[in-house]
Structure formats: structure tokens, C-alpha cells
């Protein structure tokens, strides 16, 4: 009973065409004819349905593309982990890792000795600087004269070399050269530290310069001698420092020698192992081809080729013994080295020529014991090192995500560490967001709450227009305009209190951050403005009615009510900034290293590389399927994940602080 009723209800649904499958006999024929005429079908399907499915399938394109992006990124990139695992395995088995245990901390030595060198040269300069300046200035002036007379000089040289010589031509050229030299020497500006007599003599000497005479003019010779005398004097005065520096530099030599020998051996082993691996995979491929081949003749030839290509496996165990066998020697050398440098630290004089030099020397004195400790600790771990310890997949994941080195095309070992790129990306994004947020929120508040209609019509289109500026154009602006601007500003005297000023590199993270901020402004501006627009009118009215001023209404009612939209606007701006490629590729300076955070806030003026930039820069140059290629796709996967995460966060924020709907 019920089921019948249900059936009746369903068949009596608004779709009346279904009813004429069971036409009641009493119906007039016209109606059924009219309704029948519509009932065309294609492949048994209603055309209306087909049209709907057509549009529906197009709508699913967005989902399909998103899935396809994931699929293709994973297809090219997911093999990275096993490949990198194999590479790290070889790195360990061939003994490269063993060498790096000592070699890595030894790098510190270079930093320390360069500090010492700086200190020494600064100290020496206290005495020899005036003499050196005079010498250098004289040589510079000579160069200027020579530059001005280069054409005449060339002509004269050519004439002199000509056979047979043409004396009258030489004479003409000689006179010309003499005239231009005199003029050039006269036009020079002689620095004040040359006395009037000296200036005059220099001028005379420069005017008499000819291409045949290679000896220096007498006064220049005097200046050179003056400088070397001063330099000797300075070296005797700071003898202790100079000697300590030399000793420190020499201390590393025996150890470095041993390490270099081991490194050469390890590298040889590694190359053999890699070669063997290539041959082996090639052989496997031949065998596979032979297995699927149907033609017996072809099959035989393939099998034969495969058998011929069998190469001798590298005996890793034997070759690693040659390396580990010298552990004791290596430890002994490290110990010796540590003792020597500690001694050098002890005899490092307290005195140095200048305050800066003293500071450097002190730093070195403090750094050396730590360095020695590190070296001893490294030497101690040598014993525990096992060549055949397997590299687990987790340590590979760790080596990728927490690795601090991104080194490619290296003759030693490629490392794909993620941290240098990520830190560059994050610092740049942070700078960009810190600049863009106040600007765009302020602009949004002003346009939404204070601006007159005419101002709105100016501000809104201009800001929206920024969106249409291609990123590569902004990158170009960063190179050609902003970089020079920042560099010039950083050299202004009264701005020297700013950390990092004057800056070294025109292209740096701050520059990229500024441009990215500019790019992010339109996104953040329009979304924030929407958020402010969506604040219920009643809130504003209520605030007005309570006697709040405009400013109070804006900052205590409207902005807090729209905060969710503003926050999600900032997050979406962040997504845009992290994912931007061309600006950072052109402007960020592309130095693959973790920014030196010990420089304090001045770190933002260092160059860096980014996640997006590295893909754009390196992918064009690597072969498909290599570990480098896969590593770049891994970076792409991470970027994709970051973009999804940022989007998800923005939505979550927008939901969480959803304004209390009026």
C-alpha cells in the first residue's frame, strides 16, 4: 500500500515527461504528440542531461588539473629520495664522508687565518699607509697619463716595430706623443701629500714617458723604495703578530696534506663505483631487452652484449681499508695541529696596530681553542665511523629538509639541502609582508572610510593596475633602478647607524622584499577593502550613535570587525610572495648560502637564493632523471604544499574570526 503510494509520488514528480511512459487512455492525443516530439535521445541519454554533464565535466577540470599537478610533480620528483639515498650511500662507502669529518671543521681555519691576515695588514698599515698611498697615487697618475696617450703610444710602437724603420714617421709620432703627454701630465690633479717640488718632478717624468723605456722614472722608484722601507719597519714592529699569523697558516699544512691524499683516494673510489653502477644498469637494461625480444638472433646478440659488458665490481671494502687504515695517522696529525694552533693562540700578542685589528686578534684568540676542540671532537668520531652503515630513508629525508648545503655540479659530492633556499625565501617573504601589510591596510582603510569619491577613483584603479605589471618588469626595475637607489642611499653619511649600511651587494634580499611588497599590495589591498566593506552597517551606526569620533569608529569598531578578512588577506599576500619567481630570480642576488644571521638586522642586505628562483635557474641546465632534476621537482612539491597550506590557513582564519553576522 505504502509502496504504491510512494511509486505514485515519484512518478508524479514535476518532471511530467516521465508520466507519458504510461499514458492514461483518456488523455487527448495532441498532448502526447507534443510531449513526445521533445523526447529525442542521443545514445539513450537525454540531450539536456548531456549538456549538463558536459559543463559539469568542464567544472571538474579545476580538480583534475590540481590532481594532475600533484601527479606529475610526484612522478618526476618522488624518485629523489631513493636516488639521493643511493648517492649518500656511495658517499659513505667510498670514504668521502670520512674525509669530510675532518675537512668540514678544518674550513674554520680559513676564516680564522683571514681574520688574522686582516689584522696584520691593518697593523702594518698604521706605519706604511702614507708611503703606500703616495706610491699608489703616483702609479694611478701614471696610468691616467698612459690612458690619455694610448693612441699616440700605439702608433709610435707600431712605427718602431716596422721594418724597415721610417725615421721621419717615428719622429712625428714621438713629437705627437710628447705633446699629448705634456698636456695630460699638466691636466692631472696632484694630491696634497705630494710637495710642490715632487708634483713638478712627477709632471716632468710623466711628460717624458716613452714606450721604449720600461724602467720606472726615478721619483717613482724612490716612492717604491720608501714604501718597502716603511713596510719592513712595520714588520719588525709587529714581528710577533706577523710571526703568529705565519705560524698559524703553516700549522694546517701537514694535516691538510694527509686529508688531501685521503680525499683523492676516496674520490677515485667513488668515480669507479659510479662508473660501475652505470655499466651495471646498462647491462640490466640489455638483459631486460633480451628477455622481451622475440627474434632469437637479436636476443642472442643482446645477451652477448650484456655478458661482455660485465665489469669488475669495485672492491669498496679494500679501498676503504686504505683510507681507514690511516685513521691513527690522521688523529695524530689533528692532535699535532691542535697543539700547534693552541700554542700560536697563546703567543698571539695582545697589541695590534688599530682597535679593529686588536678586536680581530682577540676574536681569533678566542676562536682558536674552540676550533681546536672541534677538531679533536671530530677526530674522536673517526673511530666510530663505519663505512658499511646503511643510510636510512629517514636520514635522507633529514638530509634534504634540514641539510644546510645546496651544492651541485661539484667534483666532490652534490648535496641537496633545503635550508639555504627556504631561509632565503622566508626572510624575503617576511620583509615583503612587513612592508606590504601596513601600506595596504592603511590604503584600504583610507579608501574605504575617508576618501572622497574622486580620490577613490584615483587610488583604486592605480593600485589594481599594479597587478597587471608583469613580474619580470618589476624584476628589471629592481636591477636597474631600486638596486642602485638602495646602494646610493646606504652610502649617505648620516644613515650609517642603520645596521648593514653601507651595503655590499646591489642585489639583495631587502631589494627583492621591497619589490615583492609592491607586488603583494594590490592583493592585500583589495581583499582588506572587501573585508572592511563587509562590516555590517549597524556596527558603524551604533558606534556613531554612542558619540564616537570617526577615528574611534574606524579603529575600535570597523577594523576589529574586519580583522578576519584582513588577516586572510595578509596570508594570501604571503602565498603570492613565497610563490613569486621572476623578481627573486632577478633581484635576490642568487647566492646559495644560509644568510648570516649573526649580522643582526643587517642580514636583510645580504644576497640569497630562493625556492622558486632555484627551480627557474637550474632546471634548464640539468638532464632529465638525474638526482639534481629530481631534487628540483622535490622543491616544486614543497612549494606546491606550501601554497596549499597557505590557502587552507587563509580560509581557516577567515572562518575562525567570521564577523558576527548582522
Amino acid at each position: 500500500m505504502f509502496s504504491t503510494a510512494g511509486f505514485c509520488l515519484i512518478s508524479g514528480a514535476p518532471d511530467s515527461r516521465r508520466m507519458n511512459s504510461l499514458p492514461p487512455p483518456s488523455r487527448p492525443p495532441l498532448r502526447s504528440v507534443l510531449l513526445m516530439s521533445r523526447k529525442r535521445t542521443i545514445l539513450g541519454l537525454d540531450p539536456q542531461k548531456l549538456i549538463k554533464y558536459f559543463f559539469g565535466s568542464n567544472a571538474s577540470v579545476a580538480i583534475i588539473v590540481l590532481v594532475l599537478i600533484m601527479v606529475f610533480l610526484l612522478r618526476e620528483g618522488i624518485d629523489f629520495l631513493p636516488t639521493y639515498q643511493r648517492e649518500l650511500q656511495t658517499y659513505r662507502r667510498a670514504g668521502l664522508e670520512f674525509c669530510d669529518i675532518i675537512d668540514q671543521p678544518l674550513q674554520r681555519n680559513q676564516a680564522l687565518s683571514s681574520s688574522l691576515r686582516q689584522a696584520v695588514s691593518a697593523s702594518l698599515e698604521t706605519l706604511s699607509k702614507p708611503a703606500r698611498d703616495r706610491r699608489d697615487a703616483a702609479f694611478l697618475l701614471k696610468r691616467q697619463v698612459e690612458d690619455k696617450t694610448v693612441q699616440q703610444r700605439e702608433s709610435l710602437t707600431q712605427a718602431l716595430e716596422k721594418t724597415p724603420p721610417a725615421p721621419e714617421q717615428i719622429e712625428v709620432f714621438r713629437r705627437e706623443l710628447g705633446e699629448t703627454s705634456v698636456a695630460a701630465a699638466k691636466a692631472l690633479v696632484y694630491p696634497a701629500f705630494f710637495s710642490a717640488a715632487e708634483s713638478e718632478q712627477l709632471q716632468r717624468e710623466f711628460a717624458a714617458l716613452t714606450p721604449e723605456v720600461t724602467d720606472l722614472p726615478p721619483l717613482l722608484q724612490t716612492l717604491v723604495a720608501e714604501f718597502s722601507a716603511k713596510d719592513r719597519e712595520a714588520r719588525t714592529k709587529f714581528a710577533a703578530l706577523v710571526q703568529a699569523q705565519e705560524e698559524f697558516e703553516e700549522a694546517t699544512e701537514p694535516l691538510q696534506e694527509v686529508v688531501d691524499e685521503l680525499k683523492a683516494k676516496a674520490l677515485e673510489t667513488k668515480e669507479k663505483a659510479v662508473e660501475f653502477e652505470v655499466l651495471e644498469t646498462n647491462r640490466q637494461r640489455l638483459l631486460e631487452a633480451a628477455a622481451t625480444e622475440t627474434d632469437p638472433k637479436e636476443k642472442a646478440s643482446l645477451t652477448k652484449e650484456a655478458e661482455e659488458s660485465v665489469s669488475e665490481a669495485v672492491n669498496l671494502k679494500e679501498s676503504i681499508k686504505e683510507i681507514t687504515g690511516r685513521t691513527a695517522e690522521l688523529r695524530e696529525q689533528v692532535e699535532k695541529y691542535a697543539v700547534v694552533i693552541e700554542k700560536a693562540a697563546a703567543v698571539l700578542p695582545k697589541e695590534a696596530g688599530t682597535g679593529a685589528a686588536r678586536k680581530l686578534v682577540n676574536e681569533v684568540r678566542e676562536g682558536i681553542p674552540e676550533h681546536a676542540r672541534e677538531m679533536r671532537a671530530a677526530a674522536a668520531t673517526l673511530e666510530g665511523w663505519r663505512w658499511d652503515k646503511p643510510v636510512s630513508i629517514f636520514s635522507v629525508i633529514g638530509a634534504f629538509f634540514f641539510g644546510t648545503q645546496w651544492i651541485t655540479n661539484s667534483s666532490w659530492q652534490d648535496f641537496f639541502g633545503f635550508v639555504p633556499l627556504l631561509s632565503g625565501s622566508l626572510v624575503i617573504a617576511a620583509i615583503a609582508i612587513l612592508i606590504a601589510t601596513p601600506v595596504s591596510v592603511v590604503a584600504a582603510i583610507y579608501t574605504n572610510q575617508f576618501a572622497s569619491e574622486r580620490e577613490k577613483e584615483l587610488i583604486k584603479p592605480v593600485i589594481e593596475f599594479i597587478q597587471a605589471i608583469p613580474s619580470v618588469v618589476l624584476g628589471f626595475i629592481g636591477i636597474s633602478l631600486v638596486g642602485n637607489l638602495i646602494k646610493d642611499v646606504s652610502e649617505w653619511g648620516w644613515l650609517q647607524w642603520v645596521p648593514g649600511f653601507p651595503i655590499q651587494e646591489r642585489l639583495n634580499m631587502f631589494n627583492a622584499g621591497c619589490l615583492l611588497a609592491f607586488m603583494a599590495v594590490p592583493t592585500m589591498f583589495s581583499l582588506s577593502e572587501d573585508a572592511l566593506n563587509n562590516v555590517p552597517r549597524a556596527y558603524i551606526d551604533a558606534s556613531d550613535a554612542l558619540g564616537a569620533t570617526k577615528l574611534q569608529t574606524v579603529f575600535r569598531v570597523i577594523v576589529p570587525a574586519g580583522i578576519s578578512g584582513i588577516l586572510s588577506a595578509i596570508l594570501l599576500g604571503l602565498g603570492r610572495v613565497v610563490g613569486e619567481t621572476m623578481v627573486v630570480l632577478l633581484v635576490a642576488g642568487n647566492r646559495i648560502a644560509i644568510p648570516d644571521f649573526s649580522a643582526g638586522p643587517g642580514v636583510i642586505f645580504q644576497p640569497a637564493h630562493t625556492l622558486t628562483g632555484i627551480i627557474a635557474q637550474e632546471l634548464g641546465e640539468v638532464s632529465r632523471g638525474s638526482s639534481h632534476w629530481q631534487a628540483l621537482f622535490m622543491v616544486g612539491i614543497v612549494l606546491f604544499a606550501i601554497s596549499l597550506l597557505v590557502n587552507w590557513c587563509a580560509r581557516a582564519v577567515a572562518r575562525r574570526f567570521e564577523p558576527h553576522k548582522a
Partner: protein
Amino acid sequence: MNPAPTNDNPFAGDNSGIQQRETAARWALRVGSYIVVLITLAIMLHIFVKGAPVVFQAKWPFVNTQFLTELPATLHVIEDQQGNHIETDVNGADAVKKKLGEDFRAEKTISYSGGGILGPIVGTALLVVVSVGVALFLGVACAIYLSEYAKHGKFLEMVRLAILNLAGVPSVVFGLFGLGAFVLTAPTFVDVPAERSVFSIPLGFTTLSFEGWDTCVLSGGFTLAFVILPVIITASEQCLQAVPQGFRETSMALGATRWQTIRYSVLPFATPGILTSSILGIARAAGETAPIMFTAALAFKDKLPWQKDLPPLPADASIFAHWEQSVSRFLGIFTESVQALPYHIYTLAAKIPQNEYAERAQYGSVFVFLVLVASLAASSVLLRKRLRAKYRW
């Protein structure tokens, strides 16, 4: 004993600084917003001042036709003994050197900076046509579904989420996707499948092989199409939604089917809006660099895409063979890799040593590029305004 005259009006404004603070804050906000405007205008002005002299000239025809109609080439700068600089191309260099004879002093070559930028302009135009064609088809269909057919539910939510996420995917990731999907995997008809083919379906006379299209306009265009797809979908859906509900109801009430309603009562009113909004998509597609880096763009190419090198035909070749070659040349507009303006700018700015000649080429290209993109964006904005005024319901 008179009360102080200032306080007798209880409703008078309290002048204890609130007014000043209000005004100060208002001015601070105003300055903040105008900074952005000023920076934008300054950048535009800078490019205009540096770029316009490259593209325009003082004498007839006032436009540097060479710059706009020639392919990029290596610039040779020859200096004579008097210090004059003569600019010429690779063919002219020898003649100039011969003419100077003894007077010749030095020669400098600057890659990519000579000639003009016709190649990049053509390449960008082709990429834009392909990408906008694909994106408009997919995007408008998707928007029609979202606006006219979709009912609330899981599928709709997923589609919306996917569109949102697609809009946030970094452009370089699209480049990787295009490389993996179109350059290396997309299906194509070949006689013998390449080794990298994922799988192939023999069809008798030919083979459908999933081995990719290589770097070409088609790969780049499809990649760009997915970059601008979210823009087009969102814009089209807004235009469809703007058509009053009454139009649809009237049509349905007269007995039209859903498709007839869409075809005759919705689309005609939404199409102008969809087209103007998709101009923004064009501007975006023209401006993207990262997606075409690995899929379509070349740093240098001395031919236009339809000037493909083909083996010369024998004298007695049939008309059919000639026809086949012409078709193959014509198809070059899809199957050849091209230069593109943004990639050309990148090459000029990052890959060659900087000097005055390179700078001239840079600013010229940037100026032309920006004028193209900006006029597209501006026309979109203006047309939308006019449309809004026209269709006011």
C-alpha cells in the same frame, strides 16, 4: 563673576586635541595610501622616460620601425681611431671593418641587443592566443556549470576549493607541471614512439604515443591556460551571476529548456562582460615568465615560427609535396618553440653583461611590453565600466 565665555555652550566641541588628532591621523592614512600611488607612477614614468626614446624617434615615421619589425640579433659595435662608434649587425661588421681599414680600432659584440623585438612579440602573441583560447573554453564552461547547473553539495564545494587553490599555486610550479605533462607526456601521433614514451597505442597507420609535445607554443599555451584558468572562471561566473534571475525565470516559464535558457537568455547578456574580463586574463598570460621558461620559450631564435627549415624539394616534386611543406610550415606556429617578450627581458636583464647598448634594448623591450600589457588592462577596466553603464537592470 561672569562665567568664562568659552564654556557656556554644553554642546560645543571639546578642543582638547581630539580634532587635531583626527586630522593628523587622517593625513597619515592619506599619505600612506598616496605613497603607493606615487611609487607606481614613478616606476611608469621611469620606464617611459628611458624606453620611449628607443621606440620613438624625432623624424618620420616617428616610430623606430626597425626595433618593432626585426628579429633580435647580436649587435656589433665597431670603434674607429677617432673614437666614433658604428653600430651594425653581423653581416655589416665585415664591410664596416673593410671600409675603415687602418682606421679600425676595436670591435665589441653584444648578444641579443641588436635588431628588434619582432620575434618575442610574435611568440607572446601566439602563446596568448593558444592559452586564452583553451582557458576561455574551459573557464566559461566551468563558470556556466557553477552558475547555472550546480546544486549545493560535495562536488560544488570541491570545485570551488580547487579553483581557489589553483589560483594560489606558484607560477613556477605550473612551469614544472607543464614540463612534466605537456612537454614530456602529452599524447601525440608519431610513426615510431620515442623511448621516453609512457605508453603508446598502435592505430595501424600511426601510433598514439604519450611522449610529449616538446617545448613548443602548444605546450606553453596549455600551461599558461591553466595559470589563467582561475581568473577566467571567477570573472565569467561573476558576469553570469550579474544577469538578473528574472531573465531565466521568464525563459523557463515560456517552456524553454535549461540549455535554451542559457543559450538565448543568459549568455547573450553575459558574453560582453566575459570577454572584457578575460582581457585581464590575456594581460596575465602575456606577463607570466616562469610557466613558459621550460615549456615554450627560447632565449634566442633567428626565425619566426612559420619559417621552419625544411629540406628543399626536388624540382619535379608534386604539388602535393609542396602543399605538405606549406602546411608543415604553417603548423610551426604551434609546434615550434618561440621567443617571448617576458623571457626576452629576463635574458637581457640577467644573462648578458650590462652596458649602454644592452640597456637600450632592455628599456625598449620593457616599454613595449608594458605598453601592451597596460593597454590591455586599461581597456578591460574601461570596457567594463561602459558595460556596467549599458546593462543596468
